[in-house]
């Protein structure tokens, strides 16, 4: 593909911004389109509305190759157009396809007659084949090739994965059709395996990967609970599992407060409702779903057992408000839920490496340093796994708190257990040492 011929990116949310900049970083021209004039202006001015490690650098480096536009007619120049709008999810983690459909409807009139159109948005199985019919109705003259390209964005690692995908899964009209040559050539820059398959297979593959991760997390959390019950130590067991080649060294086995952030939840909900509609037994998904819904309760149970029973209105320090490290996202973040749930019964002081004042935080005092948040606290809750927590200076935990009790919901200090002298430490997958729970507490 000539570098002068631009590739279109359509929809400039998280996925679109990262993908278009990554695409341009290979020296390729990009027309990045979004209907929002404000958003386009702000991107053109270099303001990035999302936080990702390396994104600012990527923007600086590739900015010159990208033309930010809010005029869909500019897409007429693009033989390859990639729909890269994130599909928003509702409160119940269901997908709202309306925006992506509206966006496609808006650009179809301007597409070249022989365009290769690639959908990268997080759509459910069946979407792409139905989209073909929809496009044919709007533009019967269009002889477009339609592909679905599985996005592999992970919040906090989006840039790295957009630049060096481990593989490209591409949905085609049928198994034997293969990729449009122009698109195949474009993907070859990544030097990774290209896997063409039916639309439905590719759409399902995307959710299937996430479901496997959910399966692993759900499994690990249940086993961690069992360890606490029978006085085993999940931390001792995990290395043995990782040595089993059927499980593997990179398996998701760390206990946690369950899945969060919205993407995994969306995929679980998507497959669950597909199974419901088709009458496929989804007891396995239901198990994951229930386990994850209840997983947050671990934090509540520990706070209740070790903190609330000791004090009428305790002061609780919270480290971490986002749902995980290296992201600004607080979607389904357990920290915010806990603060909301116990707002009437405790005082919260928080520190987060990235979150500053914002609307949805609830009744919490945001402080400027880890030590400030600890001052006078009856307990510290570590709610995500930022490197700042993993490597934190523990002296203020001993010196600033009323009681040096740490409830580590993110396993941030797991690797430093031997350093924790003088600190009461509660973490997942083993019984807390030297701490007795209240006889029975609600």
């Amino acid at each position, binding site marked *: 593909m000539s570098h002068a011929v631009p590739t279109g990116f359509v929809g400039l949310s998280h996925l679109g911004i990262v993908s278009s900049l990554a695409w341009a970083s290979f020296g390729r021209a990009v027309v990045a389109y979004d209907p929002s004039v404000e958003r386009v202006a702000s991107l053109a001015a270099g303001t990035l509305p999302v936080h990702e490690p390396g994104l600012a650098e990527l923007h600086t480096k590739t900015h010159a190759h990208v033309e930010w536009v809010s005029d869909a007619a500019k897409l007429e120049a693009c033989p390859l157009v990639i729909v890269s709008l994130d599909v928003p999810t509702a409160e119940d983690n269901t997908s709202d396809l309306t925006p992506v459909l509206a966006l496609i409807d808006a650009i179809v009139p301007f597409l070249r007659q022989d365009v290769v159109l690639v959908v990268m948005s997080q759509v459910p199985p069946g979407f792409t084949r139905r989209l073909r019919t929809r496009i044919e109705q709007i533009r019967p003259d269009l002889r477009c090739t339609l592909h679905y390209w599985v996005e592999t964005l992970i919040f906090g690692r989006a840039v790295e994965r957009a630049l060096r995908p481990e593989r490209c899964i591409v949905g085609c009209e049928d198994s034997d059709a293969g990729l449009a040559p122009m698109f195949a050539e474009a993907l070859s820059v990544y030097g990774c395996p290209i896997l063409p398959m039916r639309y439905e297979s590719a759409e399902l593959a995307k959710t299937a990967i996430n479901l496997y991760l959910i399966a692993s997390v759900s499994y690990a959390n249940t086993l961690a609970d069992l360890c606490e019950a029978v006085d085993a130590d999940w931390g001792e067991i995990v290395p043995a599992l990782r040595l089993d080649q059927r499980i593997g060294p990179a398996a998701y086995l760390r206990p946690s407060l369950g899945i969060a952030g919205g993407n995994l939840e969306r995929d679980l909900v998507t497959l669950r409702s597909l199974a419901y509609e088709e009458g496929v037994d989804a007891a396995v998904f239901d198990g994951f779903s229930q386990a994850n819904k*209840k997983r947050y309760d671990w934090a509540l*149970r520990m706070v*209740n057992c070790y903190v*609330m029973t*000791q*004090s*009428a209105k305790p002061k609780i320090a919270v480290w971490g408000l986002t749902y995980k490290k290296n992201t600004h996202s607080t979607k389904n973040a357990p920290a915010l839920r806990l603060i909301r749930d116990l707002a009437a019964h405790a005082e919260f002081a928080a520190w987060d490496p990235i979150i500053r004042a914002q609307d949805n935080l609830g009744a919490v005092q945001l402080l400027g340093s880890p030590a400030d948040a600890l001052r006078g606290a009856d307990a510290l809750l570590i709610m995500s796994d930022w490197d700042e927590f993993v490597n934190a200076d523990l002296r203020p935990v001993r010196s600033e708190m009323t009681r040096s009790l740490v409830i580590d919901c993110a396993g941030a200090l797991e690797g430093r257990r031997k350093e924790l002298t003088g600190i009461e430490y509660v973490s997942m997958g083993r019984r807390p040492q030297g701490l007795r729970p209240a*006889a*029975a507490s*609600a």
Partner: protein
Amino acid sequence: MSDKFTIPFDRVVVLGSTGFLGKKVCDVFRQSGVDIIGLRSKDVDLRKEASIAALQQLAGGDVALIFSSALTPDRGQTLGTLSDNLTMAINVGKFLESCKIGLCVNISSDAVYPLTANPITENSPIDPAGYYGLAKYGGEKILERVTAASKIDFLNLRVTALYGPGDPHGSYGPNSFLKSLMKDKTVRLFGAGEEKRDHLHVDDAVFLIRKLMAVRATGTYNLATGRSRSFSDIVTALQQAVPFSFEVVSMARRGPITHRHFDTTRLCLQVPGFQFASIEEGIAGYYRFCFPGT
């Protein structure tokens, strides 16, 4: 946890005021200054259609009704008691269809759950093993629908194994142990008492009912401690509480060993930090009540 809180109702009507829990509720509410009307089956026989008219005289938007009437399993789990229990619920339902009150509290039971599920939450599947649980489940569904249609607040409480002074039934566990201890200084245990159950002291149950009413909680709550203990743990607690030695007789178990645990997160969010009586405390107090002056 402080118990300085007020019930936001001008009057509380208790149906089933001579039952174990109903009587305690009346006593405690009355002591804390609540205008309480306790009705026994002698006063209003809920099995009769006429009871609806009798109840209508007590209605009002500032009234809370606690429906605690039931023919308990010790009265026999027969089609007759089933029919009576269902009829009572239906008549209370008809009363609520005809009158406005502020709140309906339904005293249900963990007998609506099967013994196969652990830990139990308010969302656990329903599968009552006997007629008593079936009637309780029927009552829940009836009152849930009726109150929703009449826009009456509904608080549904599934109470687990209750124990404590005043238990009239001698149900297996602390109650039967104290009863037989008083009778012949013997405790009778199925097998080695391995089964774990969640034993709730009646005083804690009453406190929780008051508290949930005070915060205007609605929906279903399991009333349980969240910490299950084996029957042999209870015997051990009893041995520690009692200044004399007693015989522990093992009886043949009737079925496989079952356990019952509760996940009390939902309750916990309403009363965080509440400390239930431990089985050791509860048993010791129960013993002092049964053997005063020892």
